[in-house]
């Protein structure tokens, strides 16, 4: 491996990729059994499973890079060490996944569609030029990702072009997601180094590509913001802490045990 700087920037970027998929997979799994129809339950749970698989690939790279055991990274890391964008940690709606869920399918469709499109742009840039092992992982992930994109795009188109109520809900959801979308493109405080070392292209370039694709479809101003915190710098809402305590409940219940 090249310099220590290269290594630490690479690790930083991989955490961002891994944690986005890991947390969004969790949000997806909360929908299990609650999706609009059974066919969607089957498809959505398959996507969540894929996302968990993608996260696992990234975590295994982090393991190789000396960051420690992948299970520890996912089940014993404190919230301020997570690098996911805040968009991923926002809840699906009021209530919990076990009690009184009042989940918002429009928000879920928009979050997943906008994120998956950003993921596509991101992975494409890495495929062009980056650390070789990361490129190999991204190559594998891209195939499944393109199916996910088709899935969410179909939902997006259907709901945008149906009843007035659906359109209203979708438009509201678009506004909510755009308010955090800048955080998805951010690489955090060390972003310049990541870009300078050619691990991925700049936030601006990726954002521009994302907007170019989306503006063909969405008749809505695509001003993106980061209204709360920058998750790439380890700043998170309380929602992340609650999500992580659920994700690690069993792991933490008997420390040092094999499961």
């Amino acid at each position, binding site marked *: 491996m090249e310099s220590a700087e290269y290594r630490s920037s690479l690790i930083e970027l991989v955490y961002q990729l891994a944690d986005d998929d890991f947390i969004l997979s969790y949000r997806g*799994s909360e929908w299990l059994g*609650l999706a609009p129809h059974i066919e969607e339950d089957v498809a959505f*749970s398959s996507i969540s499973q894929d996302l*968990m698989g993608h996260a696992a690939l990234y975590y295994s790279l982090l393991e190789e890079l000396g960051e420690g055991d992948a*299970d520890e990274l996912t089940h014993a890391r404190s919230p301020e060490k997570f690098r996911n964008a805040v968009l991923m940690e926002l809840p699906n709606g009021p209530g919990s996944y076990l009690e009184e869920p009042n989940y918002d399918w429009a928000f879920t469709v928009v979050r997943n569609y906008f994120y998956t499109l950003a993921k596509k742009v991101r992975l494409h840039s890495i495929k062009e030029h980056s650390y070789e092992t990361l490129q190999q992982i991204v190559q594998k992930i891209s195939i499944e990702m393109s199916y996910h994109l088709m899935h969410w795009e179909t939902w997006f188109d259907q709901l945008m072009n149906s009843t007035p109520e659906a359109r209203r809900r979708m438009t509201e959801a678009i506004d909510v997601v755009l308010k955090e979308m800048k955080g998805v493109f951010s690489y955090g405080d060390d972003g310049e180094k990541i870009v300078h070392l050619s691990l991925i292209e700049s936030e601006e370039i990726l954002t521009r590509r994302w907007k170019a694709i989306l503006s063909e479809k969405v008749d809505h101003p695509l001003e993106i913001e980061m209204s709360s915190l920058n998750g790439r710098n380890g700043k998170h809402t309380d929602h992340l802490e609650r999500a992580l305590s659920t*994700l690690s409940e*069993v792991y933490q*219940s008997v420390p040092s045990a094999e499961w």
Partner: protein
Amino acid sequence: MEAVYQQNIDHFMDRINNGEKIEADDWMPDDYREALIRLISMHGISEIMGALPEKEWVPKAPTLHRKLAIMAKVQDEMGHGQLLLRVAEDLMAPLGKNRDDIMKDLFSGRLKFHNVFHMEAPTWGDAGIIAWLVDGAAIISQTMMLGTSYGPYGRALKRICAEEVFHAQHGESIIMALAEGTEEQRELLQDALNRWWTSLLMFFGPKSKNETGHSNQDKNMQYKLRTKTNEQLRQEFLTKYVPRIWSLGLTIPDPTLRFDEEKSEWEYADPDWSEFKKIVTGNGPKSKERLALRVRSYEMNSWVREALGKRPQHI
């Protein structure tokens, strides 16, 4: 008229007795169709309701590997539910009914789901027991149904059984890790087994109609929808799993359990069948909450179904 019907019936029974498979568009007696709809929609909806107790453990599974495995398993169960409901829908179509009717029957309590999915699953040990023993029990009863006289059901079951084997292996692997683990983990496992034992015996249903006052067993056997009795299946389950449970050093919470060499069958404490009846009629420990989740999902997504062009439903 009567004579034609009798001819149809005779021909139908001949086909069944010759081992032919009945297909969706073939002539069938009304009570055959009804028995199939009851059986398959209950099976399908049980797969779907069965995802709910496991759902509790999907995010909580203790490692990345376990998370991936349980996600795959629950996704399979949903897929089985979908597959079976499709088979049931084809049978219901001539009666002018569809999936919405299945859902409405579920919500109103007319359509029952398996006793095991009314029960609590409070620990990771329960997730292991469900995957190992509940799925193990399901494999035994579904394997018996593979030879069913209704072709579409048999084909769906073939695919389902293949996947269930992976689930049981996933369960066994969770169980092994707990059994070989720390004291706390072993306790977790023993507690879960204690909680599930009676439900597992109940899984196969009562021995005869004496216990619950009615039984569809006889008719289902005559129509070759099934080939073994509830008790035969339960005995198979005990033969397969009791030695394995013992070999892990676990205690089965039934001091009377033993294999009677002379009769060549297991003796066990018969579960309280009035309790069983209470559970499957929607009065189990988790019946109301799980059903409420399902109803909640139906209601909170009603605008989505409407947007997809389906008739809006009001339950």
